């Protein structure tokens, strides 16, 4: 194993606990002073990171923290939020229900049959019981005006 491979392995895996050190790395480390030095550096790095925990916090910041926070405190928002949520949600729900009702009403009106089959009868002012429109039974009144070629179908 070369120093480059050993160094790459150490960077990726070394964490001060070389329990499962691969044999190839171990063999290389036994002979290579350079890589042994890298391990020492990585140990130093871990120690330095731990020492960052002991950074001293400026005393004045700790002293003024609570007085500053206390000045800006607002009461917990539980009750206000509870009222606000209902105040907002009731009109919202009502509007949503109204919109849904309108939507279904419009949809119902627009749902005109695409095809009308009235058993080949084309009589004027004819009233037909139990005609089938789109597979559903209905009572129809058919009015035909020859001059304008207009047919009016009335569903009961």
């Amino acid at each position, binding site marked *: 194993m070369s120093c480059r491979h050993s*160094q790459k392995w150490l960077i990726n895996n070394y964490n001060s606990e070389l329990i499962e050190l691969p044999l190839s790395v171990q063999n290389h480390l036994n002979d290579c002073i350079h890589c042994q030095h890298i391990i020492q550096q990585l140990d130093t790095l871990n120690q330095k*990171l*731990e020492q960052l*925990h002991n950074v001293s916090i400026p005393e004045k910041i700790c002293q003024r923290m609570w007085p500053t926070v206390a000045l*800006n405190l607002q009461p917990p928002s539980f009750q206000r939020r509870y009222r606000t949520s209902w105040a907002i949600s009731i009109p919202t729900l009502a509007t949503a229900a109204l919109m849904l009702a309108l939507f279904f009403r419009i949809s119902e009106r627009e749902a005109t049959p695409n095809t009308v089959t009235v058993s080949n009868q084309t009589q004027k002012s004819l009233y037909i019981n139990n005609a089938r429109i789109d597979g559903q039974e209905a009572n129809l009144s058919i009015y035909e005006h020859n001059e304008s070629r207009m047919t009016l179908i009335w569903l009961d």
Partner: protein
Amino acid sequence: MQLPIPVEENFDIQACINGDQHSFGMLVKSYQERLLRLAHYLLGGWDDAEDAVQETFIKAYKRLDSYDTSRPFSSWIFRILVNTCKDKMKSAYWRKKTSLDVLYKTSSQECDTLQNLGDKNILISAFEELSSKRRQAIVLCDIEGYTTREAGQIMHCSESTVRVTLMHARRIIRKYYLEKSTL
């Protein structure tokens, strides 16, 4: 790895929820140092850290009703802090900061436990190489000593995500440290 310093929970969370400011004051005093330290490493300076922590306490007090008392309070408040820091880092003010060096130099002088200032600066510069998420992971796990599970609760992601993020973060820092320390 040293364990996080236990917080003396000598405050009554239910009293805080009911709006008792005295109890909340005790809470602030119990948590301020840990929160300041985390914010300091996430944001890179004490001034920004102080702002973020103040904002965190104010938000926390306002939203105490949404805190689930069956879960650890520390995870909840740390998550608020992490989100506040993230918001700060997204702000226009933050983007104007091209380098954290100046801010960190101030803090490094205050860190009297580190004997070698050069090594400290290398570490701080290495932090700059990390994305926000990776920085959170390394600060929470390697500096503050949280477990990956606890860090996951704070970062709002799974334990395995923290492990992977931490692995990448450590890799970057090790590589950076080795490159710079051998120069």
